[in-house]
């Protein structure tokens, strides 16, 4: 199996994830994009691990760490989205209203 095959899939996933981060309005969609990019990186790590036939499995161990970090990151990211929603009333990354008026109200919609 050519090494380029997983690498190409990884590049594609990274590009799509980057697009989601840069173009989508909803904060959750941005988080989805980040997950895709993390998966692309993980796929790269595993592919190189396998190609190298690593005895200490550096790539796969790092992938496990990445997955753990991703879990932590998604937890924190969702907490931030929640706080944003409480403060602004929506979860858009390009909030349309000036922040001063929002902070003054400090909405408690939940």
């Amino acid at each position, binding site marked *: 199996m050519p090494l380029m095959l997983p690498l190409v899939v990884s590049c594609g996933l990274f590009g799509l994830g980057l697009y989601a981060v*840069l173009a989508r309005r909803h904060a959750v969609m941005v988080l989805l994009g980040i997950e895709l990019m993390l998966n692309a990186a993980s796929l790269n790590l595993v592919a190189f691990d396998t190609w190298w036939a690593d005895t200490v499995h550096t790539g796969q161990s790092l992938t496990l760490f990445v997955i753990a970090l991703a879990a932590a990151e998604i937890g924190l990211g969702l907490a931030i989205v929640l706080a944003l929603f409480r403060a602004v009333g929506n979860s858009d990354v390009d909030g349309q209203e000036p922040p001063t008026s929002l902070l003054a109200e400090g909405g408690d919609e939940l």
Partner: protein
Amino acid sequence: MNRRYSASAVGITAVMAVCAAVVAFPRLGDDTGPYGLPAGRTTTLVDGGDLLGVSVTFYVDHLSAVMLLLAATVGLLVQVYSVAYLAGDARYRSYTTIIQLFLVAMATVVVADNLWLLVVGWEVMGLCSYLLISHHWELAPARAGAVKAFLLTRIGDLGLLVAVFAIGQTFGTYEISEVLTAMASPDAPEGLTAIGLLLVVAVIGKSAQFPLHTWLADAMPGPTPISALIHAATMVAAGVFLVARLYPVLAESAVTMTVLAVVACVTMLLAALLALTSGDLKRVLAWSTVSQLAYMFAALSVGGYDAGIDHLLSHGAFKALLFLVAGSVAHAIGSTALRDMGGLRVAMPLTFLTGTIGFAALAGVVPTVGFFSKDAVLESAWHAIGHDAPVAPLVAVVVLVVGLVTAAVTVVYSFRAWSMTFVGHGAPARASVAVHEAPPLMVGPLVVLAAATLLLSLAMPFDLLMGLVTTAIVVAAGWLAWRTMSAGRDPASLLGPAQPAFTRELDWDLGYAGAGVVARRAGDLVTATDRDVIGFYPRAAAATSVWLSRVLARAQSGNAQTYVTVLAAGALLTTLLVVVR
């Protein structure tokens, strides 16, 4: 109602006059003439040193002393006179205060050693004359006259300002005494024509000489005592004083002196003819002032330094007298038009007597002071023809001839004004009004000035030949005027077909209006250049900055997504650069 205030005003002016006398009297003998080393006393109040370059220094010599005494005496008499003349005037307080400021400014001019100090006094005088001429500012002619006086003297002030800069450049000092010392030394600077001409411009504006001669006559709506002050002792005398003060600087250049002589000749005759045709007593006196000032400049221009100063002094005395007489007449009949007067010698004997002395001095009748000082002027022109003089002999001849002709015209218009005021039967419209002599506070100054007009003769030089010539002229011209008047005709009709033009004062103001239009066009051009050419660069720079900042501010949107996009693009470009290389 103004009694307490007028007492304090007169008192303050009297104190000022005493101070001036104390300063002036010891210096009266310091006469070394215009070309000698400065003989006066220099006092430094504030030394500006090298840092400022402007020091408050005073320089008192014979010339300053004469001017100081003249200004102080006339100023005090005017203050006393005004107490009665302006009794009940609502703005009497500001009036007297401005007179005091006026006198202080004149004193500053005459005793200043530093040229900048002189400029300060000079400008303050311009301001004071503006304020005093517009004393009755509810009258349109007073406002217009004040503005005209201010604007026309400003033209001269500009000349003085540039001249002072030029003097500072040429001599390396602004102290008059040092300038005079430099001129008296063997290696005196040469090529002072430019400075001289600028100074001539300054005195043309200040002393109302041709072609800026009209403001003095249009300043007549001001209170009459003010006219006495301006015409006799302060404002216009400052122009003569400036020429006398910096006489060596001006006399160095024959061109300057020739220009001054020509200006003086034109002004002398023109103003005398305008005085002949005027129908207003105060305007007659105003034009006569312009004419007599031209005599002084003529004397100075042909080298008659002492004659010019003597005529300034004598003119100060008799012109103050004449204006106060005119004020007295106007106070009695409420008008200054000659046709409203006539026959006043019966009702106002003291005014008639002093007025007669004043007009005699103006005409140059023996033994008034005007006779001697005018003779001295003409004698200096005669002397300049054969001797070493600042101007060419031909110019001196012209000055002499024009001076003699003007003397004849002066006799005619003096006789005309005098007889239309005091002789005859009076205007019918005035028959019902009871005319009475002026109050003592007004008559007092008249008597003092009339006495001065007679007694100052003792201090004047005398030349027998010229005295005979002028006396012959006085007799001939007086006889002509008397014949004309007794035939029932106005002496102004002697001008023949030219009379209407002179009555309209040659429409000279139209010339000013034309010059104003040209100046405004030029100003528009300069403004347009400034706005559209020079102003383009800063405006374009500002607009570019604003535009750039708008563009750059757009990048600072606060939108994290945009930032990350740019970040990613930047990282991509960096990678490409690294890989491609």
